[in-house]
């Protein structure tokens, strides 16, 4: 079972929920940090690093001895990553989406692909938990290729938690696509609700069953609860604001360490999620 943690808005407590949910597993499990622009799960997991994998994307390289400057590569590149002058081909690797069109369509076979590093993945372990965090290099614009590479390391035999980036566009879609369930973390403020509604639209579009966690549930107003009730969205956990949590979290402590009674609460959330996933699978078969 793959459970993605998402939020629409940043700072609602996605990492707080993802890390404690992963640490509350009974047996083996895995946590993938796909918030590769700002990966923070490691701060709370404090894993023993096993190996570092350099993540790269293929970008075109021109063999000018074969090139006749026909301009086909530049014509088919939708991202303006190749410019062909009279006797020079310029490649702009930062704009390349690594789709492979130029290499494949070059009539003279003058283009090949070479890897360009965009980030790294430092796999690690904490007890029974496998930890796979992606970290995008500073200055890189595109995170989805790195997110895809983190997800390639997912072991399908074990329950997986995916900590996703904020927002509703390509990075978060790449992170949550293919999950069995999506847990949306929100807070009961107009900002939180505005972004929750967008996140709900997103998971509905992807046809992934989902539920909500309300963080700082006693700050703000009750419009978020009302929205969830009206939309028939299960609220699986409420975490009230406590200075103790904020303080502990600020020093890198996971929630279930700050308040151990949350371990059972997170286990119950996991149980409820697996029930919902089973029910939704049955519905699809039926």
């Amino acid at each position, binding site marked *: 079972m793959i459970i993605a943690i998402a*939020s*629409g*808005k*940043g*700072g*609602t407590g996605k*990492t707080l929920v993802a890390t404690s949910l992963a640490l509350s597993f009974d047996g083996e499990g895995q946590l993938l940090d796909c918030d590769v*622009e*700002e990966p*923070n799960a490691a*701060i709370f997991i404090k894993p023993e690093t096993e190996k570092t994998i350099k993540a790269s994307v293929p970008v075109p390289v021109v063999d000018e001895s074969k090139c006749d400057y026909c301009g086909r590569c530049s014509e*088919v590149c*939708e*991202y303006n990553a190749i410019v062909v002058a009279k006797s020079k081909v310029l490649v702009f690797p930062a704009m390349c*989406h*690594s*789709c*492979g*069109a130029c290499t*494949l*369509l070059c009539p003279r076979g003058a283009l090949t692909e070479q890897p360009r590093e965009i980030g790294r993945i430092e796999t690690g372990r904490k007890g029974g938990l496998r930890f796979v965090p992606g970290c*995008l290099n*500073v*200055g*890189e*614009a*595109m*995170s989805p290729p790195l997110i895809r590479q983190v997800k390639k390391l997912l072991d399908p035999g074990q329950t997986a938690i995916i900590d996703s*980036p*904020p*927002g*509703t*566009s*390509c*990075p978060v*879609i790449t992170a949550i*696509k293919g999950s069995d369930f999506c847990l949306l973390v929100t807070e009961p*403020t*107009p*900002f939180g609700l*505005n*972004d929750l509604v*967008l996140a709900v*639209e*997103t998971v509905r*579009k*992807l046809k992934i069953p989902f539920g909500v966690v309300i963080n700082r549930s006693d*700050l*703000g*107003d009750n419009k978020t609860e009302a929205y969830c009730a009206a939309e028939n969205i299960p609220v699986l956990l409420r975490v009230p604001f406590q*200075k103790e949590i*904020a*303080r502990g*979290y*600020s*020093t*890198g402590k996971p929630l279930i360490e700050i308040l151990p009674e949350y371990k059972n609460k997170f286990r119950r959330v996991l149980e409820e999620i697996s029930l919902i996933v089973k029910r939704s699978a049955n519905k699809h078969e039926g």
Partner: protein
Amino acid sequence: MKQIVVISGKGGTGKTVVTGSLAALAQNKVMVDCDVDAADLHLLLHPEIKERHEFKIGQTAVIDRQLCVKCGQCLELCRFEAIRPDYTVESFSCEGCALCHYICPARAIRMAENIAGEWFVSVTKYGPFVHAKLGIAEENSGKLVAKIRQVARDIAKRDRLDFIIIDGPPGIGCPLIASLTGVDRALIVTEPTLSGLHDAQRVMEVARHFSVPVRMVINKYDLNPEMTDQIDGYCRDYGVPVIGRIAFNRMIVESMVAGKTIIEQASSPLIKELTEIWEQLEE
């Protein structure tokens, strides 16, 4: 004309609340919400939309099922896993590269223009406001950011405004880069947590990479005074002035719930702190 962007690396540090306050304090300005993925500034500024425009960009593959011979080439060569085994296109995965269109031997794939979102020019009680809504699951948010910044620059030039105040997106990827390049100053709002420091460090590096001068504000500083000192020290070593510290205050949440900026709603110590932040920024 001076462009000031408010960023954070991490989301939820209070970026929009600070931007809203600057919008209330600055004179002669246009505001832009560049967090097109999850725009929130409109919840404080209550814009009245005057202009609405479609944002057309990129394209999506469409397979003609009559012509398709199910040869499997598109399925095999698409690197974005956007072609389903039943030869339909998963539009939210398609990056519009058109590779499938070129290689399809049956010429069954065409590229259709994509409407990725909308952008608006509005009036608010604080002045003009340019904002946008990216369609769900759309990409190219960096280009939408570039578009609304251009519109704001045009308005600032036309109306001879002194400032462009930009609410930036979280992260360090393309929307952030598109919000940050070419501005006169970036204000980073951080909170005293390990993740706040970690993300602020990364976003400071991005700002340095693009040679943008940076100032720092520590929000909720009293939640962890030791961490606040640590961030202070880090900023000093990095050469980034810390120009403000905002205490944790339930009133900030209350003003957000009321849909008001802190300047309209909250108590005087908060207003004083934010006024001092603005005075140091506008210099």
